């Protein structure tokens, strides 16, 4: 389980570098973000949420039952949109109202 950072979408704003609680994300010589230690990712998705460009997606390693789906997210007002794109490219979105508390 780890993250994938799209070089094309990354603008080098460093927000993910700052957000990672494990100091795992660095900028390369071109100023693009990369994860230096993919196996050290905790899966907290802090970087996925901080990225304003949806350049970072989260995936499950094969050892956790991952089958190639990717998770990205963005926020609009009080709503957080979580988009899951499976290996075949099919998308589904779950919307969570941040003003709603968990009922469980």
């Amino acid at each position, binding site marked *: 389980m780890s993250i994938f950072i799209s070089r094309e979408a990354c603008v080098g704003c460093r927000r993910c570098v700052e957000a990672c*609680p494990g100091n795992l994300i660095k900028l390369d010589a071109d100023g693009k973000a990369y994860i230096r230690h993919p196996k*050290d990712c905790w*899966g907290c998705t802090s970087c996925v949420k901080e990225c304003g460009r949806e350049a970072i997606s989260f995936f499950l390693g094969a*050892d956790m039952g991952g089958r190639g789906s990717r998770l990205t997210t963005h926020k609009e007002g009080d709503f957080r949109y979580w988009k*899951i794109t499976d290996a075949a490219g099919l998308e589904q979105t779950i919307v969570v109202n*941040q003003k709603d508390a*968990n009922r469980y």
Partner: protein
Amino acid sequence: MERERIVTDVLIIGGGTAGCYAALTIAKESPGTKVVIAEKANIIRSGCLAAGVNALNAYITPGQTAQDYVDYAKRDAAGIAREDLLLSMAEGVNRVTEHLEQLGLVILKDEYGAYAARGKRNIKINGENIKPLLAEAVKKQKNVTVINHVNITDYLLADGGIAGAVGFHVDERKAYVFLADAVLCATGGAAGLYRPNNPGFSRHKMWYPPFNTGAGYAMGIRAGAEMTTFEMRFIALRCKDTIAPTGTIAQGVGARQINAKGEVYETKYGITTSERVYGTAAENLAGRGPCYLHTEGISESQSEDLLKAYLNMAPSQTLKWIESGRLPHEQDVEIEGTEPYIVGGHTASGYWVDTDRRTTLPGLYAAGDVAGGCPQKYVTGALVEGELAAQAILADLGAAGSPLRRADEKRRRLREERIATETERYLGEYEAHLSSGGSPAMFTAEQLEEAMQKVMDNYAGGISTHYRYNERQLHIADDKILMLQKMTEKLHADDMDELLHVYELKERLLVCRVVIAHLAARKETRWHAFAENTDYPGQSDEWLKYVNSVYRDGKVKIRFRELTDTGKQERAEVYGG
């Protein structure tokens, strides 16, 4: 190496839950007191709250009292918990909850506008942004300076107490020397000591933050602080693979624990935290695994709510449900016990503190997961401990003739000299690892970490032995960990990132040694799974006492303390000496 010297009134090591709240407390109660937070990552998302939380697990709901919470926590710990610490914590949890709501935390309300309870001690929240809320509040305080990306490795000892700390930047070739009248340790507990559930690519998909490497414990151990209850390891019962929380499912939709035959087994082994883990391990051992939370048959809307609830705290579980093609109402959720962790916020391992959270070293305070004796504190309890420690610091700094202020000119000079010597020693160690004269790259920190986790797993009660160990095994574990400790001295680091990993490994190895010594010292099985000693499989009233330790001359010296002890006389002894 470049170095920066920072002088402050109060140094807080670790800007997580407890550290941030201590800073907020000092800002509110004494805006003239200078506070520096030294944080290994960036306080915006660092510590246990990075992914978010879905409930506040320590709250006194209507009809309950703080004493009820104390009684519950003490029962769950089979008697080994400090009542004074638990009570002062429980009395504050509702106060800090209200403050969290003022900071912007969304809390579920009932029809009368009161917080909606989940059971006797929990309330439901939307805690996805709980850490950013805390961090933003801290950043607004004028007297608080946050220094991100600095890894603290050692306290500076001088004048019979703690006078500051040293560390290094995690990217830039730069050392930091902090001088402070009071130091609060709020680094969190220790993960990564034992081989984890997913040892390969997903090795860091664990319950506790893998970046909490036991730094605060290790610094205190090296400095000779008294530590308590390291034998009460914490093992979480989690969703298989994703290591996501099970409480949201168990309490949220009332799912029971069942074995492969569909039998409800949770009632068979008892319902304390350790018994729930033990029951699952026992069912597996008896050939009745895997075990599940029985969710098949819940409603589709409950299923959907679960998907959302997990996105707010453990998105990997939601992704796993979707990837499998079967949602929670269509399949039971497999569960497993994690590897053991050392964490004072769930169990009781940590600094031996007095009621106000002073450690046994003058000038040093502890709060949150690094502080011992006070289990079941969770988020709100950690906040309260940050508050209590901050108040103790302010009281001690403000007292007339406070020894912490060190006004005497001659003592001040001696202190400076001692600090300079200590600083050179620690910075010399950093340089030694970074210098090209280090050993060839035959061994790396990563390799030694794997070796450490294998030793702890095989010989100190990890997952592979179903958490069981005996004295002979502990002996072997200690020998092997000692050898690994020696091997770390020659580790080479190419850059600061590698240096960070070298120090994290050193911290973990030292914590391992204390864990092994404590496990060997408690000659009973007080808690199933948490400390399952096969040489002494039963519980004995003789062992209704604390196992404490002090590290001296490279050895872990065990000392026992009565259950009525509140840490007070320890401080007197230190000051008197």
